[in-house]
């Protein structure tokens, strides 16, 4: 099995490899631009016009507009770049983690507190360390 097939066999995990990096380039660069106050302001004032600056695919743009975080990940998003858009939204990685795992944020927090996400995915609560 090639490394890339081995990575693909890991459940619910997306390795930001050369292919995803090329696919997601403009999506990620849009997200990164949210680091700067003048860009945040420009995006707030004219979201569509601001997104026009980044030649994403129509599907990527739809995912961004819908804040479909798992979709963005599938379309080449890198979580550390997406985090800058999450911060712009005043959202958190726990809200986004909930969406990606199909839970509400409270369910996601409970799941964390109970330690129920193991390497093989969701399961019973882990024994304390």
């Amino acid at each position, binding site marked *: 099995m090639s490394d890339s097939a*081995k*990575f693909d066999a*890991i459940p619910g995990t997306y390795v930001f490899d050369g292919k995803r990096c090329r696919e997601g*380039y403009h999506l990620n660069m849009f997200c990164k631009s949210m680091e700067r106050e003048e860009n945040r302001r420009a995006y707030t004032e004219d979201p569509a016009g601001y997104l026009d600056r980044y030649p994403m695919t129509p599907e990527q743009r739809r995912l961004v507009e819908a804040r479909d975080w798992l979709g963005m990940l599938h379309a080449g998003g890198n979580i*550390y770049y997406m985090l800058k858009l999450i911060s712009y939204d005043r959202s958190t990685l726990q809200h986004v*983690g909930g969406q990606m795992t199909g839970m509400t944020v409270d369910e996601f927090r409970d799941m964390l507190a109970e330690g129920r996400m193991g*390497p093989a995915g969701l399961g019973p609560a882990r024994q304390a360390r």
Partner: protein
Amino acid sequence: MARIVAGVGTSHIPAVGAALDRGEHGNAYWAPIFAGFEGARDWLASIAPDVAIVVYNDHASAFSLELTPTFTLGLAEVFRPADQGYGRRKVPDVAGHPDLAVHLLERLVADEFDMAQALEMDVDHGLTVPLSVLCGTPAAWPFPVIPLAVNVIKYPQPTARRCFRLGEAIGRAVASYPEDLRVAVIGTGGMSHQLQGERAGLWNPEFDRAFLDDLTADPERLAALDHVTLVRDAGSEGMELIMWLVMRGALGIAPREAYRFYHYPASNTALGLIAFET
């Protein structure tokens, strides 16, 4: 002659920095965590290193997809906390140590490590949160810092083996510096965590405990971990643990474990902290 006197491995969870910056570190969620840092702070204060090499990863703050170096050594006089989308952290600027940094750079390149060299670089939570963890909230950080940024957010990352070897080379380079300096090496990131995908929130206590144990018992096993194993067992962001291996490689044969703290969950991840003396 300079020598490495201490090593630390520590998570660099941004929420830890935010809890401190917002004064929330005394609440029910954070108090046990900050209590766990106390022992490491006291220990490091007793060591009082003259300078620290902090091995961390940039999170698309100073670098971006346009250009991603594998290893970057910071040569500047001062490094400012990065603006990661919510303003710069209100912590002291980080003083560098250009003399030692240039010495390290020359030795590492001669030793066939293909370092990028940075004369201007903002440092993000990967570097500033560990300083907060280990030093609290002083008006100025108690020692100058040489940042060593490792690419872990874009495949392909350097292998665990390469990171370990870089640490060994840092050990040799420090030992050849003529001035008497007591140097600490701090590796940051980890422990098991995954921020993304249907497996977000991953926790693998068995992996983490074995990793902490084997820093003393079997570092060779850790240096041999491949990327697929790291991502599978420690999570896509757990890969950051390769930076602890730079630290471990720098410590030489048999460092002594001086302190350990492990906690779950902290934000979305497991938090680990381990300290060594040489």
